[in-house]
């Protein structure tokens, strides 16, 4: 049964990745279209094919190099040297148990207890752990956390989640740009150049652009919310299956609850990758990317 569900999970993630690529590409294309319409309505015929190619390259690049972007955005550095032998041993051991190649191991210099996994497939997976986790967790707890991350790798969650994080990162950046343009009175300048025939449609496109820009982060948060919770529970369960010791992760999660302030300097787009939300905000009750820790601990203790 366990094997079946983990194959199911892989298939589901593959499908989600493809769906995501299509939806985001269309979304971006919509954004570019409204941009082009506003700035260069006469050049639409040149801009659109060009932007289509760019979007395809962008989507492909996010998939291919997403892990590098994520790792560098969190300031993770490779775990090399004697002080990290311990961490490397834990990761290699659990990789053996999961039947995946040993992941590359990274460290983030931060006193909070946190970790994430990234990569486009198990052969190119990386795991990053904070120095806080190394100092504050004992071996069983650290194994629990690393096993959770390796389960994300094995279920191919990392493929999908990295993809989301990177693709989504640009959506919010683009939306920011549109909003800023509106703020500085770009719309006023626009009116003087508009042609009689297109004026009505133009307004619609501008409005649509704004709506998209405002909706983007919210839609993104909702998507993350929908995808993360099930995956977190799954990874908790299959992580416990790897260590055969659910209590390790349960007690690590309790330490996370007691220790973490939620003040890591991590981009919002990347935060769903972490085992526990690195930035706590008042919006979290609405758009939580992670299920409540208490609930996760409870489920682990029931195993």
């Amino acid at each position: 049964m366990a094997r079946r569900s983990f194959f199911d999970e892989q298939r589901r993630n593959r499908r989600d990745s493809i769906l995501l690529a299509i939806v985001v590409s269309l979304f971006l294309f919509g954004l570019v279209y409204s941009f082009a319409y506003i700035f260069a309505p006469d050049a639409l015929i040149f801009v659109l094919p060009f932007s289509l190619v760019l979007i395809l390259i962008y989507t492909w690049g996010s998939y291919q190099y997403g892990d590098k972007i994520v790792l560098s955005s969190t300031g993770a550095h490779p775990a090399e040297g004697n002080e990290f032998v311990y961490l490397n041993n834990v990761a290699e051991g659990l990789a053996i148990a999961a039947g995946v190649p040993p992941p590359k191991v990274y460290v983030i210099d931060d006193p909070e207890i946190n970790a994430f996994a990234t990569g486009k497939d198990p052969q190119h997976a990386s795991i990053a752990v904070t120095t806080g986790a190394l100092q504050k967790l004992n071996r069983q707890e650290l194994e629990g956390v690393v096993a959770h991350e390796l389960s994300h790798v094995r279920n191919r969650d990392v493929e999908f989640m990295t993809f989301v994080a990177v693709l989504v990162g640009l959506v919010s950046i683009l939306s920011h740009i549109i909003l800023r343009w509106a703020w500085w009175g770009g719309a006023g300048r626009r009116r003087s150049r508009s042609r009689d025939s297109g004026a009505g449609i133009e307004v619609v496109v501008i409005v649509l652009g704004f709506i998209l820009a405002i909706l983007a982060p919210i839609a993104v948060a909702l998507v993350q919310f929908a995808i993360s919770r099930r995956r977190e529970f799954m990874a908790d369960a299959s992580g416990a299956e790897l260590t055969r010791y659910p209590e390790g992760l349960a007690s690590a999660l309790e330490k996370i609850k007691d220790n973490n302030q939620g003040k890591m300097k991590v981009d919002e787009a990347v935060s769903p990758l972490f085992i526990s939300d690195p930035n706590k905000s008042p919006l979290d009750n609405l758009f939580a990317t992670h299920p409540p820790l208490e609930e996760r601990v409870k489920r682990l203790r029931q195993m």
Partner: protein
Amino acid sequence: MDILTLSVIGALVVVALILVGLYFSYYNRIRMYENQIDEAWSQIDVQLKKRFDLVPNLVETVKGYAKHEREIFENVSKARAGLVSGSPQERMEASNMLTSTLRTLFAVAEAYPQLKANEQFKLLQEQLQGIEDKIAYARQYFNTSVLNFNNLITTIPGAWFAGGRSKREFLAIPEGERQVPKVQF
């Protein structure tokens, strides 16, 4: 040929195709699991070999501080010799024995504060602990693979395509011998 013969032939062809398809799919799955078991064993093998190579370093380091614990050194090297030859089961038993003799060695080391403070010793201790864990995990993976294989070839329809393959043996070794590390950074 009339319609009836045609449809009978058609039906037979469809059934034959389904059977061939099933045969291929189960043949491949059985082979896949067999390969997985081999791979799982080679994981254990790699760790046993690493452990074999690491133990002399440890013994040398400890000898530098605790020369007269001769009996322990002998037990360790005896257990170590068993790691590289014999059947999987025998080698796992040797590995188990080594685990317990190493535990005595580390217990003895407690009495030598200078040894305990030695960086090299701490690193070796961590590496041996890591290998011990990896062996345990590799064994777990091996046994899971064996379980999957056995399930596949003993249940229908897998059993029809097993081609006389027999069930594989589990690596039966008492679980729960994992030690809490004393290493701290």
